């Protein structure tokens, strides 16, 4: 018999170090800080509890974003970067690693991946052009590639990229976050930017990992 019930935040032992103002920044409409601080404290006290409402789920995801930010790789870690140096982001292999059991607590894979992107990548200074593309892996006893995260370099807010994915044309504007389904293991895409670049090129075609997520294009970093 287990001696403890598991929860979304089991692997984080520093949730009390989260800055409440950072947490609140993820929530709209802006809640009272005291409410969110008490919510977080009760979560630390009873980590196994489940959110009942949609608004509580938003708070859980905000906590997850900040927990990942706190526990993600730090700029100082780069000098000693090795394979598997961080449990959630493998910079060498450019993988976003999501523990599969997280889906029990956040069943929407899109929202879960989005939280990982916000927590781990949004403020990350790219080391090289290869950090424009990340593979998303669900990790349990066996690993499952569920898709990719693409972070293009838009030049300005008016910028856009035209995509051709599996024969379909699509335009993604700068500042947006888009999830495109592609359940195949490998998905062919062709792209052409107005001004920006992906993997150092304005226009190219490539194959990226797909899966039950597809791929998430994060164009918010303008």
């Amino acid at each position, binding site marked *: *018999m*287990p*001696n*403890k*019930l598991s*929860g979304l935040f089991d692997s984080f032992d520093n*949730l*009390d170090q989260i800055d409440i103002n950072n947490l609140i920044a993820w929530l709209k409409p802006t809640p009272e800080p*005291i*409410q969110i*601080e*008490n*919510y*977080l*404290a*009760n*979560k*630390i*006290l*009873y980590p*196994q*509890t*489940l*959110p*009942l*409402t*949609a608004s*509580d*789920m938003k708070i*859980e995801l905000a906590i997850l974003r900040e927990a990942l930010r706190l526990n993600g790789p730090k700029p100082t870690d780069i000098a000693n970067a090795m394979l598997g140096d961080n449990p959630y982001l493998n910079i060498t292999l450019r993988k976003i690693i999501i523990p599969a059991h997280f889906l*029990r*607590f*956040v*069943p*929407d894979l899109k929202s879960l991946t989005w939280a990982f992107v916000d927590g781990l990548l949004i403020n990350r200074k790219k080391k090289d052009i290869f950090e424009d593309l990340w593979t998303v892996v669900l990790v349990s006893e066996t690993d499952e590639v569920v898709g990719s995260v693409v972070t293009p370099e838009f030049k300005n807010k008016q910028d856009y990229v035209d995509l051709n994915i599996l024969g379909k044309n699509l335009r993604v504007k700068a500042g947006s976050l888009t999830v495109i389904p592609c359940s195949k293991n490998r998905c062919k895409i062709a792209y052409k930017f107005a001004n920006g670049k992906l993997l150092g090129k304005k226009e190219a075609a490539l194959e990226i990992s797909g899966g039950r997520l597809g791929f998430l294009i994060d164009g918010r970093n303008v």
Partner: protein
Amino acid sequence: MSFLAPTRVRIQKEAIVRLTRSLKGNGKITVAPGQEVSPSEIIGTAFVSAGFRTINLAHLLEVSPQDIEKYIQRTVGQRIYKGELLAFKSSFLKGKKTIVSPTDGVVDFLDLKTGELRLKFLPKKEDLPAGVYGIVETVDSQKGHVVIQTSASLIFGMFGSGRIRDGILHVVTKRDEFLQKKFISASLGEHILVAGSLIFKDVITTAISVGVSGIITGGINAKDYKGMSGGRLIFPKKTENDIGTSIVVCEGFGSVPIGEDIYELLSSFDDKFVSVDGNKGIIYLPSFQSQSLIKVKNTQLPPIQENETIQYASEGTELEEINLGQRVRIIGNSYPGVSGKIIAVDQAETLMPSGINSFMATVETKRYRLKIPVANLEIIL
């Protein structure tokens, strides 16, 4: 299908426990191990120094600081009582100036650079009553501690802050009300207050300033709790803290009414001697029945261990299978602190508005029935 939930002991009735009574200053213990004691029995006497007061004699006498020795009527170390002459100056031009002592005390220090005199208040004699029916187990005359074995009901709160303190319990508010600053008066000094669903920082600081020994509350704001626990939220606590009063939080963070089970028990001890251990989150309610001594005499506690592991209220929860009829408490952020009885457990998952599929249990409270994920339940033992 069976489901597991954590268990929690909230109340333990009529346990035989050790209570430590301590002198508030240097003094003498007047009981010996093996001696039976009753609540009003004096088990020791201490002499407590209550601080000092500084008087600027140079300013009051209108003389230079180095001259105050000429006018002072007492020497350093001498005792003086309120209203007695402390300093006197007679001048042909300015007339007579007399300074009397504002309080009973001892002339402690004279500063000829600033012209200030420090008056140390006279130590007050403070008797230490046993507070409980019990048998003295050990006496530490040097530290002024007496360990008494007694019969007490124990309430295990969730967490808290502060060393062991005791006093007369005073139920100030209803279980679902906030304790407001206006309720705290000097007459509540050395009392343990039952505060309802939430206490704020200003109430705590006021309580400290009037010498309230302890506060029992349903909830507290996380920010205030962090402020008294070294800025961290770690359960069980790894360090002990003390801010000058002892606080036991029975339910959780935010405004959470004290559970009916705990509030009823506390109410039955209104105006009685109790003890709170904030750091462990435990409230001791010693029996006020003299017959309880019989049980104390017939119970053998294991010997006191040196470096005994501290058992915290929030420690040692184990998982148990959920069964119909069990008393449970809802935990987490929805319906916090609500308790009731399990009347049904679903065998199929329900999709909740949060998007999570979960097995649900139906909990019947005094007023309504709630469907709650089994993960949000705690079995009350």
